[in-house]
């Protein structure tokens, strides 16, 4: 218990005795976490926009006359790529036609017997899932025709894949840069206390006792940097939402408070964890080297 008390006291000593370095670490952490958060928000919005478009994509499969939709429905339901499927009976299709024709609905009676076949309305999870699904449907003998926005689907699938790859790379890079920058800043802080740590090791301090204040310091600076980054992101993002709404009303961007709150909590946790991990690695490396007898 006393060790924890000393560790917290030493953490605050560290923070305030080397306040310039602490401030530098805090601002560095805030900057890199802001970039990380910005890249993540960009990636999330790209994914969101694409998924909105993808969600609106519907594949329509028409059965041959006299065929029911049972066989096709079974195949579609068993596919993991499918989000939802609905079978449309010839009667329902006729009703829809009537509704579409409005005051010219009487014209339908001229058709005599209902000529419309059974059909399926299928929604897939992602645009890239459409082409393999269509291929599977086309081989069924009961299927007459499958309608879908072919070129659009292919382009959307390409954009979706590219955006996932680009945002993944951006996230990995920013995460790597954040980790390296925080790790090195904390390493400088540790080297500024090199003499003190060496004396502590010589008089019998355990590496845990030595590491604890640095680890708490790293965690506090990481968390503090994350809070600053969250404030920055929150104000930037709020302004961006306002600007986009007033100029590009058709663009869908994430403004769900719950999703954004979860994202900010995640960023805070990422900051604290990165700070903790980087400082632990830096101090562990240093103490291991110092403890090694020559």
């Amino acid at each position, binding site marked *: 218990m006393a060790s924890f008390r000393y560790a917290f006291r030493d953490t605050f000593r560290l923070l305030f005795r080397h306040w310039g370095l602490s401030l530098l670490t805090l601002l560095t952490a805030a900057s890199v976490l802001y970039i990380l958060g910005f890249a993540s928000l960009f990636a999330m919005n790209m994914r969101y926009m694409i998924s909105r478009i993808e969600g609106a994509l519907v594949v329509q499969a028409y059965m041959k006359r006299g065929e029911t939709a049972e066989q096709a429905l079974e195949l579609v339901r068993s596919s993991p790529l499918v989000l939802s499927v609905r079978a449309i009976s010839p009667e329902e299709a006729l009703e829809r036609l009537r509704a579409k024709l409005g005051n010219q609905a009487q014209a339908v009676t001229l058709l005599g017997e209902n000529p419309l076949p059974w059909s399926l309305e299928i929604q897939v999870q992602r645009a890239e899932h459409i082409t393999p699904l269509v291929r599977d449907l086309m081989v069924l003998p009961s299927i007459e025709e499958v309608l879908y926005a072919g070129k659009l689907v292919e382009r959307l699938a390409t954009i979706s894949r590219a955006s996932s790859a680009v945002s993944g790379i951006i996230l990995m890079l920013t995460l790597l840069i954040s980790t390296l920058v925080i790790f090195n800043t904390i390493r400088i802080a540790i080297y500024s206390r090199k003499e003190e740590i060496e*004396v502590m090791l*010589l008089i*019998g301090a355990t590496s845990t006792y030595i590491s604890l204040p640095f680890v708490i310091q790293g965690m506090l600076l990481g968390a503090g940097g994350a809070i600053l980054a969250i404030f920055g992101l929150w104000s930037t993002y709020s302004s961006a939402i306002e600007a986009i709404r007033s100029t590009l009303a058709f663009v869908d961007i994430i403004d769900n408070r719950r999703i954004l709150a979860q994202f900010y909590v995640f960023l805070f946790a990422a900051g604290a964890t990165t700070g903790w991990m980087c400082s632990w690695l830096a101090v562990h490396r240093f103490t291991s080297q110092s403890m090694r007898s020559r």
Partner: protein
Amino acid sequence: MDIRLSGITKVFEPDIVALEDIYLSVDSGEFLYLVGTTGSGKTTLLRLISREYLPTRGQITVGDRNLRKLRSSELPYYRREVGVVFQDFKLLPNLTVFENVAFVLEAMGIPPKLVESRSNEVIDQVGLWRRRFLKPPQLSGGEQQRVAIARAMANSPAVFLADEPTGNLDLRTSEEIMRLLLSINASGTTVIVATHDQYLVDAYRQRLVELHNGRLKRDERRGRYFVDGEL
């Protein structure tokens, strides 16, 4: 706590032999001077005992611990039993005398009240009570040496190693420090003092081990003499 060195050789890269084939036994509660010219291997020997260095050949046992087999997780607990006064003091300049002494005890997880009382006790013992809130740069060389001694004795170690504790000090201060070391030894602690201060060695006669070019040259023990490998 007794110390046994058997066949100790220490070679530094690339090929500097600091100690060669040293056999030495120090009984528990014994006081020993380690003498020899600069570069004779005194500091290396102390650093081997404090496990800062590992021997190139040979075995060192302190109490029931074989230092070569000591795991890194056991090292801090071993070092708590060995108080070391470093040649360059190794005091922390940002901390006061009190804090320099207290932080040894804090590192052991001792509760704050006990840390305070024990630190004050040893600071008083070394005669620095009135200077306990000063920082090392505000102290004289002799006072800094006494802080280093206070820090090394704070956790009542079983073995006390002092590397040139009177180096660059005036005679009066050197004598004060010697008396302090003898009082530590009087409480049953094994004390090894590396020095080349012949006056003190003669004035406060104790067992004497002389090193020369990394070899044991003389071991004067209770009237028996071991010179250049022969009794």
